[in-house]
């Protein structure tokens, strides 16, 4: 696209600038729409699992429910508690929302379709997701209220704990793929097992790591069974207790954008991203073009993982806080460390010619 604008007479730098802005909008706006639809889908999933109907009044089959909720929230008054720290109180939801959006810059949607094809893509995602915790901490502190503050403390400890094991899981993937670039990681999974199955997840050495990653990604996005940050029975609504109207909505949008991102990461890092699960040529381009087929496969996988997230939320009871910490530090951390050693040892023997090399 940069070339097109350049061709129209803009200088190269400004055409790059314009093309990037358009690229950002092309990702961010459908993402917001996706969040609205996915909240509806999730409520339907929970309803089905609880033998209820779920939203079915606004629009056909209740499809417009999220937009109605959005409109309601948008029209309400933003209430700022008198003793809150005003500036920080308003910045916190913005931070959550922004961080949830910037991560998408490096996600490869289809072959060659990525906004920023940087070679530290995975580190960028780690960095951006570690920023996410500030939204919660700052919200909790600036509200100047007890429950949000407890929630902030829980959020900080939980995020830092699970980021450790996520880091080690990512290291095993990076070791196998030999790159931090997400597009390269996807391409490395082509015919990974027996030259037939696309995806590191089919590899018996990496499958346990996917399980760890999947559970950690729930903890990282504060989803049930790890939603102690906003446990209703203990903390009202956690860090969102004092928030109203759009500032509340921004938390929700950011949270769900993060959930979708984690689904995308599960697909990209372990299940072949935009590639079909089986390495068979017609599957790569049966849907008009290879790009659209790639999008189809990625979205199919993301939807599946999102269904799993909803499934877990509907069925698994909440962890207690000490159990959460135990799982993170005493089980996931040693397990992922062990697998880093196993994977690097295996690669040392098979790929780099033994320990002597």
């Amino acid at each position, binding site marked *: 696209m940069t070339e097109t604008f350049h061709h129209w007479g803009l200088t190269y730098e400004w055409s790059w600038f314009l093309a990037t802005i358009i690229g950002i909008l092309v990702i961010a706006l459908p993402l917001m729409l996706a969040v609205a639809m996915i909240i509806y889908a999730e409520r339907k999933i929970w309803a089905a699992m609880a033998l209820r109907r779920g939203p079915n009044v606004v629009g056909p089959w209740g499809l417009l429910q999220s937009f109605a909720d959005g409109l309601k929230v948008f029209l309400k008054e933003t209430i700022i508690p008198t003793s809150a720290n005003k500036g920080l109180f308003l910045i916190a939801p913005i931070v959550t929302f922004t961080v949830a959006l910037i991560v998408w810059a490096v996600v490869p949607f289809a072959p060659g379709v990525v906004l920023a094809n940087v070679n*530290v893509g995975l580190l960028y995602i780690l*960095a951006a997701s570690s*920023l996410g*915790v500030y939204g919660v901490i700052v919200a909790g502190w600036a509200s100047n209220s007890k429950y949000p503050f407890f929630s902030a403390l829980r959020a900080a400890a939980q995020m830092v704990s699970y980021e450790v094991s996520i880091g080690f899981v990512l290291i095993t993937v990076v070791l196998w793929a030999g790159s931090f670039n997400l597009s390269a990681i996807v391409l490395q999974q082509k015919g990974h097992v027996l030259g037939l199955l696309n995806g590191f997840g089919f590899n018996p050495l990496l499958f346990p790591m996917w399980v760890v990653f999947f559970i950690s990604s729930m903890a990282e996005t504060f989803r049930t069974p790890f939603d102690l940050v906003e446990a209703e029975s203990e903390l009202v609504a956690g860090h969102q207790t004092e928030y109203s109207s759009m500032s509340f909505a921004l938390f929700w949008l950011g949270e769900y954008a993060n959930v979708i991102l984690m689904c995308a990461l599960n697909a990209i890092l372990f299940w072949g991203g935009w590639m079909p699960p089986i390495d068979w040529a017609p599957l790569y381009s049966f849907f008009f073009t290879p790009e659209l087929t790639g999008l189809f496969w990625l979205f199919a996988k993301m939807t599946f993982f999102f269904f799993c997230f909803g499934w877990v939320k509907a069925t698994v009871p909440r962890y207690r806080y000490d*159990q959460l910490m135990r799982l993170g530090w005493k089980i996931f951390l040693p397990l992922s460390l062990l697998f880093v050693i196993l994977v690097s040892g295996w690669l040392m023997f098979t790929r780099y010619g033994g320990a002597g090399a």
Partner: protein
Amino acid sequence: MIASIAFYLFATLTIAPALAVIFARNPVHSVLWLIVAFFNSAGLMLLLGAEFIAMLVVIVYVGAVAVLFLFVVMMLDIDFASLRSGFTRNLPFGIIIALVLLAEIIIAVSAWQAGPALSGHNVAATTQPNIVALGQLLYSRYLFPFEIAGLILLVAMVGAIVLTHRRRHDTRPQKVWKQVARRPDEAVKVLDPGVGEGMKL
């Protein structure tokens, strides 16, 4: 041009928050300004082409170290009056430290062209990604210092745990393995007491 705009943006946003760290009255605000400064210094690294270092700054400093700072500072009950009371008493010592730091900065800035490694020129861009280049150096030429640094950090971690760990005897923590290993026949006892005899537990 965009590169220079970005440079001045990041530079301003590093220095101004760094000043705000010192001048902010609220310690939590100070930590948050520090985070802003860290984040923008990562941006400067990025402009220099050191993308790996930039990401590490964000992951390590912003994502872990500053979270812990914030964690501690938020929970401290700081009494500002007692903090300020020592101001005049410690002023001479503070001025000395400030002068030493100033001298260091002046020496460092005036010698920025001195070293053999940089000599004022930009490092030539290579086709190698940062991480590959760093890894090759760390695991060949600097292998020994690298391993020693790792060992020292491990010792520090173990030391911190040993120093702060205390075994409490008045708690009854959950033993998950015990719960998992429990079987119905050892947990439930079926009794049939006669009338008027009651239960013996």
